């Protein structure tokens, strides 16, 4: 498969690009909900529109009413989300959650609502400030016909708005994923606004009782499902980072062509030209790595896990470079809330932490390669 978008994918990108630039624009979504102090941090109307366009069913099989497409296509939508900083449950719900439950009975229960743009799902994996999915302290003890969950989760994106939360826990048999409905007795949800004005949640589980059918997959066999969920989430976050970085670069290069100092356009200065050119190079490489990871996920290639880590780390680094250079090259106005470039810096920070930052993924790559 060549490493560029095919004709169908290019059409999807063009459609997603014009839709997101129009309906998902910063003024219309991010600033709108932020300035109203919205408790969800995103618009349900836009989520319905995503459903109308088929986006929410990209990873859902055609037999189940979706489009039956892959991670490349999900990434196309996410890159446009990134470009416009569009607040949306897309990554958690339509990518990570769908990927995790697709071959389980939970698919029947939740996919119709996701396809209709009514349902929002959240992923509860992290327990401390750093992403460490290999050490899950959350306990699930057998209790009656089901389980009793106790422990804490944090950085649960859209956790306060979710209808269903996928929770990673440890049982005697091993790691297990549970689908926990909102309002479960003993579950305390504290919505927290993050630096980019998205809403995360801290969850406290105090002997939250769930039925046996809340288990996703098999008890003690959650590692594989968690790996699939994380692979999809990481590749998706990488795509969104590529979008964030690309838009920040485009804004910045545009500014270099318009801002005058010392009687000339600042884009004429070689010191800035070379930094902009280096940034372009880094983002091109990040985009290639991300597409490669998505293709490998879609082909279930053996090396997909390593390539996903490469993509998440590289996209994270490159987008960070883009927003840092962006604010610096904009000078004073880059520090103002009125100008959008700073919003990109905040989103980049959040996406870098999500599903593991570049340090986490460089370390993971080294382990996968045996050193």
């Amino acid at each position, binding site marked *: 498969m060549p490493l560029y978008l095919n004709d169908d994918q290019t059409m999807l990108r063009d459609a997603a690009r014009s839709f997101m630039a129009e309906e998902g624009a910063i003024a219309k979504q991010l600033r709108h909900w932020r300035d109203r102090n919205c408790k969800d941090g995103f618009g349900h109307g836009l989520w319905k529109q995503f459903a109308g366009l088929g986006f929410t069913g990209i990873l859902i099989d055609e037999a189940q009413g979706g489009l039956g497409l892959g991670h490349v296509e999900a990434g196309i939508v996410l890159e446009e989300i990134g470009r416009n900083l569009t607040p949306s449950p897309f990554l958690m719900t339509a990518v990570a959650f769908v990927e995790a439950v697709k071959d389980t009975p939970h698919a029947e229960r939740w996919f119709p609502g996701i396809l209709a743009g009514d349902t929002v799902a959240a992923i509860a994996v992290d327990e401390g400030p750093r992403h460490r999915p290999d050490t899950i302290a959350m306990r699930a003890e057998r209790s009656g016909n089901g389980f009793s969950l106790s422990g804490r989760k944090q950085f649960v994106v859209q956790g306060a708005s979710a209808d269903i939360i996928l929770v990673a826990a440890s049982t005697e048999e091993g790691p297990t994923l549970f689908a926990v409905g909102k309002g479960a007795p003993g579950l305390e949800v504290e919505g927290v606004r993050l630096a980019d004005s998205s809403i995360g949640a801290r969850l406290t589980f105090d002997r939250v009782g769930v039925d046996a059918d809340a288990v996703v997959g098999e008890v003690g066999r959650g590692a594989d499902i968690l790996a699939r969920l994380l692979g999809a989430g990481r590749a998706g976050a990488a795509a969104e980072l590529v979008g964030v970085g690309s838009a920040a670069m485009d804004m910045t290069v545009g500014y*270099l062509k318009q801002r005058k100092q010392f009687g000339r356009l600042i*884009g*004429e200065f070689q010191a800035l*030209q070379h930094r902009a*050119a280096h940034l372009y190079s880094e983002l091109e490489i990040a985009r290639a*790595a991300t597409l490669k990871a998505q293709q490998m996920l879609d082909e279930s290639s053996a090396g997909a896990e390593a390539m996903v880590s490469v993509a998440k780390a590289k996209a994270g680094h490159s987008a960070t470079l883009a927003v840092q250079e962006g604010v610096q090259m904009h000078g004073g106005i880059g520090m103002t809330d009125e100008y959008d470039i700073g919003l990109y810096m905040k989103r980049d920070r959040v996406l870098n932490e999500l599903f593991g930052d570049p340090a986490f993924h*460089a370390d993971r790559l080294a382990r996968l*390669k045996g*050193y």
Partner: protein
Amino acid sequence: MSDSEAFRGEARAWLEANCPAEMREPVRDETDLCWGGRDLVFKNEAQRRWLERMAERGWTVPDWPERYGGGGLSPAEAKILKQEMARIGARNPLTSFGISMLGPALLKYGDEGQKSRYLPEIARGEIRWCQGYSEPNAGSDLASLQTKCEDKGDHWLVNGQKVWTSYADKADWIFCLVRTDPQAPKHHGISFILFDMKTPGVSTKPILLISGSSPFCETFFDDVKVPKDQVVGEVNKGWDVAKYLLGHEREMISGMGLAGQAGAALGEVLRDAVAADPVLRADVARFDVDAMAFRAMSERFIDELKAGQAHPAQPSMMKYAGTELNKRRHELVMAAGGSDALEWESDRSRRGKAAREWLRTKANSIEGGTSEIQLGIIAKRILELPGT
């Protein structure tokens, strides 16, 4: 069976029957490469046989037309041949600036006489070429070159000096940029000329580098007479040929960063060295992220080139990123090697292989247009930033 599968089978069987076992061993050093040329001395019988068989088949230049000594293969077939050669570890039968640089320029800009004269010699490895571009006062500002070429009616007369001429002391012929119109603006008075290095008035002097080797020369032209039919393309339009050829050179140099890695992450090779040193391990891990990401970029670049989708200035990006990465790789290899890697002459160090290679990579981001020149090209031609 599709045509391409049929070709794969055919190529595999032919390679199996014709590639000598010695030519399937990894290249250990420079002396294992076959550069061709009039005075070629083969390292062994296998090297001679391999070149002859491949040249006979046209597979030293698989995608050139058959009438010029090529294999006449489609790009898809040429890729399959490359994969099949890689599969058995077959060496390139011929390493040649004629193939990688001059040939593509002649195919595009040469007249019929030039093509049928020079290309078959290149394909068979009979003539070794060198490139006369840089001058003592024309490095990054290549178009300011001053080597003079006067029209003397029945011949050209060349006077001047080139520098950084790779293997000029070993080459048979040179392709050279010369100034044919000193009055014209600097890009418009340049011509692209070919001549025999044995012509009276040509002399060379090797330059000793920090790596201890001398791949480059100073080359002097003192009243060198060149026949009139040896200018490629139009007189005074040699800059177009030069730029086209530089694009190929950049692709070749950016590819060097990948050659020989065979998909291995650096950390796999340095496993023992980094095990006790967490900070070095972290540096290597970060390098591997960048190296694997760049490998994906290379794949994308080649796919886009084939589909005609690559930006014309994208080779500058590849050259910049690839060479900077290669320098980082060798810094890490040296760090992991510690004082073992410092030995310069011992057999233990294979005559300072690691150190000499490390120093060699420092030229990667200078030759073929410095990193700064590439960044300037990206800024102007891709990002369309203003300025001169």
